[in-house]
């Protein structure tokens, strides 16, 4: 464990009582290694290491904890604080329909998440409809339609420009009394200017209350690039981290949060429509530390 690794590093240095600078450096080297192994972006790791150093430098060792345990406690607390404790559920607009736009890289889990969020909205007493705006990927619309039919969730799609389909979906929602509209968009690269422009057009055409970046929990160092690019190009309100039912440490959660300042709102924990949880910073912190 991280505590053991730090423990043996400190043991080699023979310090006791107050954590000396060389103790802290040795401990932080282990912390940085653990975070890199967990896929936290290397720049975020550096910054985080400095924060922890400031907090532990000169701190007297608590009676109940070993120096290693003390460092890990600070690390854990700092991680939880960074990961944030914003309200994590869906924020419903005062003027329905609440429009939630899902964006992200190819294969992240947007289409699956769309139906998950629809079910969450329904559990919270709302009437959701999902709009299939991925007209690019073969059978993408079929995928969402199949999921929607299985779960008896309203579904809409169309042909032509996605901003027009979305705009009609908003009008339709008003007429049918659906008060939550979830837009499933095509996967795209953050470096594809044309496709990023499409998202801007979409956001300009309908009153989007929430733009959520759907990201794979296994994402590596690239998470920072993706997060920043989507935030700059389109503006995002938060993240959905998917495939957390696997064993990836999920350092991308910290990378995305620190790089953009936006919170992780939801965790995808399986392929079924019910497999969505609110994001738990303390659980994520423990997971990242391994």
């Amino acid at each position, binding site marked *: 464990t991280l505590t053991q690794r730090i423990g043996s590093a400190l043991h080699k240095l023979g310090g006791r009582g107050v954590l000396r600078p060389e103790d802290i450096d040795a401990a932080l080297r282990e912390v940085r*290694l653990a975070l*890199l*192994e*967990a*896929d936290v972006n*290397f720049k975020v790791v550096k910054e985080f290491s400095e924060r922890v150093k400031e907090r532990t430098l000169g701190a007297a060792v608590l009676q109940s904890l070993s120096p290693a345990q003390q460092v890990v406690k600070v690390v854990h607390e700092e991680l939880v604080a960074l990961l944030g404790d914003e309200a994590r559920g869906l924020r419903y607009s005062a003027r329905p329909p609440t429009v939630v736009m899902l964006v992200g*890289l*190819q*294969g*992240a*889990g947007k289409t699956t998440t769309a139906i998950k969020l629809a079910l969450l909205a329904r559990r919270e007493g709302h009437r959701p409809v999902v709009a299939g705006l991925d007209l*690019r*990927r*073969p*059978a*993408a619309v*079929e*995928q*969402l339609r*199949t*999921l929607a039919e*299985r779960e008896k969730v309203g579904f809409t799609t169309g042909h032509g420009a996605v901003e027009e389909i979305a705009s009609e979906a908003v009008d339709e929602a008003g007429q049918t009394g659906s008060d939550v509209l979830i837009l499933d968009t095509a996967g795209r*690269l*953050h*470096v594809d200017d044309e496709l990023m422009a499409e998202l801007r057009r979409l956001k300009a055409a309908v009153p989007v209350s929430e733009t959520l970046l759907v990201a*794979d929990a*296994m*994402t*590596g*160092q*690239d998470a920072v*690039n*993706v997060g920043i690019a989507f935030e700059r190009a389109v503006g995002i309100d938060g993240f959905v981290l998917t*495939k957390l*039912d*696997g*064993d*990836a*440490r999920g*350092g*991308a959660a910290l990378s995305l949060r620190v790089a953009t300042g936006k919170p992780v709102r939801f965790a995808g924990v399986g*392929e079924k429509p019910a497999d969505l949880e609110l994001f738990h910073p303390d659980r994520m912190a423990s997971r990242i530390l391994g």
Partner: protein
Amino acid sequence: RALASPLDPAFYAGLEELLLAGDVGPSLAARLTDSVRRRKPLTLEEARAALEAEVVAALSAKPRSLELAANPSVVLLYGVNGAGKTTTVAKLASGLKQAGRRPLVVAADTFRAAGIEQMVAWAERAGVEAFAGKPGGDAAAVAFDAIQAARGRGFDTVLVDTAGRLQTQHNLMEELRKVARVVGRALEGAPQESLLVLDATLGQNSLAQARAFNTALGLTGLVLAKMDGTARGGSVIAIESELEVPTKLIGLGEKLEDLYAFDPAWFARALFG
């Protein structure tokens, strides 16, 4: 940035960060940086060449061409959810057709919503035939029937698309092992290629995936998809080095033509940016 000259004191720290940024992983990044340093390059060009040589040396020495001598040859593709399997099957089918072969695509993802439809639609776009399972059907049975059909109708390559699964889902890994076994029963020596599709944007979990799928099935190769983004797919170095499995194909986009043979030198150079 700090990477102007290897004689600059910040150079090797910068090089290590570059490798980290490419998802090489912390211990391998340190090891590769050290190997470059020990070669004592005097110019940036020498450093680049040194890194390229070290990366290529770490990669597998096994051949990177697809083993398609058998008639028919069966290629089984698998990997975690959303990695790019279905799209890769389509691209491979298209490429094989261009090369004068007669591939049969097998839509054996009988689990995911519209999994079969997506594969069938792609096969149509590629102008190749598809053998489709039924939603909820047994993937192994689909693969078996498809291979029988292929033999009867003169297809020389059978490409089997499977449902995505996480390596931690033991029952699904068992299901995949059954698919591979049944494929072997349908045709001796099959599957000739057993390919793990990896998403280049993923980090160190790719190594865990490769180890698990290798233990369960025995990989003959890797496909590194989504290399057209900004991620560099550096985790394949550790995978190739540890498991001796070669990356055979690289995905550089979402169109049928966006599949290329993996070139170690190109890959090493791309890491350096």
